[in-house]
């Protein structure tokens, strides 16, 4: 029973909860939303034990949706998507709790949109039908657009439109590619089907068309990740979005891009993806992302923008890990995806808390507040160190695995990427110093209140994860390993065959 319905329940429940939020009285809206998201989390937790690491794609459900076009409602989960689902259900309650005082206008709409967004995100991660995937990919765009546009900062309209148009452009290209792919496969097999497995099994050799199809998928995912130079929407969207929006955007939405590479772009078109020219280009762009993101973050006067650019750098590691195609590097990429969600999510929460106290995010406006808000300072220090990738924090595990794995495939790239870790220290540590250490020279900072119980309730689960994953990541790695292995086995031989044929 649980196995058949859990993914559908995860998909549908937040939407139902959103309706409940809309129907509830305004002052109850946030509590209803929090309860709904906690139930969602509770539904997802047993996945941790139910999931069979060696079981491949599991907990599947397949129901015809629009049979005339071969469209099914097909969902399933494997070691790649499992943790992204758990990350989503884990972060949404925290984001809702973190918005209790930040969101003061049109609360019902905000919390309902957060829950609808949850449905869309879960949908992207569980979809095993390309139509369903596309639908969910676009569906989660709308709530995020509203969240940025309605509760964002000064420049929110511009940021929201930019976010929408960038993503929409990519997704429409992907739509064309999906339909073209289905059409081409149907010409060969006579079966119109958007099923992931059908397409995977019959995609075969597409010649130069494969290049264009991969290109369309690549653009859609690259904009989402974002890979340099498609990242320009990200700082705007992050800076303008309300705290919860930034957290979800960084922690989950960006991962959809890398998830798309892992699930669709590489397995469907391995020969293109691992063509030496494409490979070189993508690895180069990842490295540029790592270094450039770090260097730009270094000069940001706005703390939130600094974190936004640090995302570009972190996601560069993920891309490098995926393309290096060794077991360690792919597992590392998956770990960085999770860790970035936790650490960067926590950083955005912390900046949001600063903003609520001082209504500014300029690093210059603070200084020496460790004496005033010791708890806050302690948490910010831990989270920053994990974002830098200090050993014994979660950040270290992922980046270390990526570097070790990538060194076997691209030694030079691994060395350059390792420099990126140092750059991370160079932008976060000074910022940390200027915010919480240094002399306390601004009188308005002398009376800041420390973290409240609610804020601690938001941050402590994240800090716990940081420590847990930093010290004992084995349970995650064990569950990821077979799926990561299968990913490599799917991609590498096909690419190898192509290389041998040349």
């Amino acid at each position, binding site marked *: 029973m649980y196995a058949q319905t859990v993914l559908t329940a995860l998909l549908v429940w937040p939407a139902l909860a959103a309706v409940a939020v809309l129907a509830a009285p305004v002052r109850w809206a946030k509590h209803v939303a929090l309860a709904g998201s906690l139930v969602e989390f509770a539904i997802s937790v047993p996945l941790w034990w139910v999931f069979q690491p060696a079981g491949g794609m599991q907990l599947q459900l397949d129901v015809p949706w629009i049979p*005339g076009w071969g469209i099914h409602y097909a969902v399933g989960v494997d070691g790649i998507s499992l943790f992204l689902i758990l990350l989503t259900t884990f972060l949404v309650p925290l984001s809702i709790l973190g918005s209790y005082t930040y969101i003061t206008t049109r609360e019902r709409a905000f919390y309902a949109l957060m829950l609808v967004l949850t449905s869309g995100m879960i949908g992207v991660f569980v979809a095993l039908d390309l139509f369903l995937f596309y*639908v969910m990919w676009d569906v989660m765009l709308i709530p995020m657009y509203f969240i940025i546009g309605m509760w964002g900062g000064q420049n929110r*309209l511009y940021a929201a439109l930019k976010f929408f148009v960038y993503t929409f452009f990519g997704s429409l290209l992907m739509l064309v590619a999906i*339909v073209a792919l289905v*059409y081409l496969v149907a010409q060969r097999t006579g079966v119109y089907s958007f099923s992931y497995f059908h397409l995977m099994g019959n995609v075969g050799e597409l010649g130069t068309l494969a290049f264009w199809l991969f290109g369309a998928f690549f653009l859609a995912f690259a904009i989402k990740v974002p890979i340099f130079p498609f990242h320009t929407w990200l700082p705007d969207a992050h800076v303008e979005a309300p705290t919860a929006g930034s957290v979800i955007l960084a922690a989950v939405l960006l991962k959809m891009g890398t998830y798309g590479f892992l699930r669709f772009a590489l397995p469907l078109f391995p020969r293109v993806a691992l063509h030496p020219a494409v490979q070189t280009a993508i690895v180069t762009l990842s490295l540029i992302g790592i270094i450039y993101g770090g260097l730009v973050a270094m000069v940001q006067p706005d703390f939130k923008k600094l974190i936004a650019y640090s995302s570009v750098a972190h996601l560069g590691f993920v891309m490098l890990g995926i393309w290096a195609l060794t077991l360690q590097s792919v597992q590392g990429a998956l770990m960085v995806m999770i860790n970035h969600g936790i650490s960067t999510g926590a950083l955005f929460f912390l900046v949001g808390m600063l903003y609520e106290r001082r209504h500014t995010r300029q690093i210059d406006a603070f200084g020496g507040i460790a004496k005033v808000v010791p708890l806050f300072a302690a948490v910010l220090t831990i989270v920053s160190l994990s974002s830098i990738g200090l050993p014994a924090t979660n950040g270290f595990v992922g980046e270390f695995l990526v570097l070790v794995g990538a060194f076997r495939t691209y030694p030079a790239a691994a060395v350059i990427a390792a420099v990126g870790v140092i750059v991370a220290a160079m932008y976060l540590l000074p910022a940390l110093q200027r915010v919480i250490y240094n002399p306390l020279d601004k009188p308005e900072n002398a009376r800041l209140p420390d973290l409240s119980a609610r804020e601690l309730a938001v941050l402590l689960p994240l800090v716990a994860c940081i420590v847990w994953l930093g010290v004992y990541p084995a349970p995650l790695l064990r569950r990821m390993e077979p799926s990561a292995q299968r990913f490599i086995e799917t991609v590498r031989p096909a690419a190898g065959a192509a290389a041998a044929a040349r």
Partner: protein
Amino acid sequence: MNLDFQALDLSRPGDLLVALAPELVLTLAALLVLLVVAWRHRTPQDLRLAGWLTLAGLGAAGFAAWFLWWRGAGAAGIPAMIAVDDFRFVADWLFLGTTALTVLVSFDYLEREAVWVPEYFVLLLFATLGMMLMAGAQDLMVLFLGLELMSIALYVLAGSSRRSAAGAEAALKYFLLGAFASGFLLYGIALVYGATATTNLTLIGVQIATLGLQHGTMLEIGLGLLLVGFGFKVAAVPFHMWAPDVYDGSPTPIAGYMATAVKAAAFAALFRVLGEAFAAVPAWHAIVWWLAVVTMVVGNLIALVQRTLKRLLAYSSIAHAGYLLVAVATGTAAGAAAFLFYLVAYTLMTLAAFALLAAKGTNGERDVRIDDLAGLAQRRPWLALALAVCMLSLLGIPFTAGFIGKWVLLAAVLVLASVISAGYYLPVIMAMYMQPEPSAEAHAGMRLGRLGSAVVAAAVAGLLFFGVRPNRLLDIARVSGASVRVAPAVSSDAPPASLREPTGR
């Protein structure tokens, strides 16, 4: 009378009457309403009575069309003046449904704007009759009659707000350009007749094949003139100039009617003409394809710079005409199915948007700018939500009928064009949801009556329903699309396969 519905012999009067039942019922209804308004046209109650009678007539005609569809009516024997196939009946429903929704929206509008024109509803009925004839015409002469019946009724309707200078301008402009377009069409018909010695669509197709006229100069010129005439009616670029001005000046419900039903009728006729008569002529595929591309791109680009909502919707409807032309350009049964589905989706979203606009425009049709919608979501959350759904559907976001529609007629250019369209649909949503209300009274005059609300609610519900469960409608569209007797296109000028996509199986 012993009737074989599947094989009506249209040369027998009895069978012909049955085949024409929807049109005949509607004619009787129109005459009845005309008589009623001749005697009773002084009070709002009279107007309402005429409206309800109109609705009853539309319902009766819809029932007749449904009955024929349900019995699987079809024609046998030599080709006649009128087609009896599913395509016609489904198109009839679309026209009748659109007209009914327009009538419902018009009640409040006419009262609020004090437009006491009793003929309003009669003209709507005659226009609808013309559309049904167009969609069912198996002969160019019947097609022309239907087109003129529709157009003349609409020239009057465009100017039905007699005190409005803009309305008079719109009516005159529409009349002059419409007459011009009719001239093109008629001349095209004459040339086609000259080349093939017949005006019957099926026979034209036969003549082209037997006489080998695929590249006949006179025929091609005639076809080109026909395309120009239809291009005017569907407002395809470069024949679109009249549309924004006419929509702008016309009463808003009529503008919505023109953007949906009129366009749908012209498209249905165009589809039948090209599919049945000219399937063997390769020239039009490329022409229609390029018309579609230019229409999509230009319509979307000009819509970007519009500041008033009505003109924005006008250019959006031009862009959507381009999308529909894509379906026509394929000239296949799948294209017909896509075309029918998209027409339904497009009609629902555009009609609802115009109905909402009609509610906002007050005091003699002041131009509603996009900025005037600022903060609407706080004041009127349901209205804002409905308009937002319409905009998202026009944009083609999943879980709306607009998305499924875009999916069925997917083409690469269309996709890129719809990225442009995000640039003008989204600002409408932004104004409503993301900008503060300029003043507390900004939306005070906005009123959507009970009937108007019902129409909008029904349309929005339909958009969402077909966005999630399009199955039944897709099946109907597929069967009806296949019922047009389309000869297989033999064309090397058709757009490359990589740009076109299969629709259904």
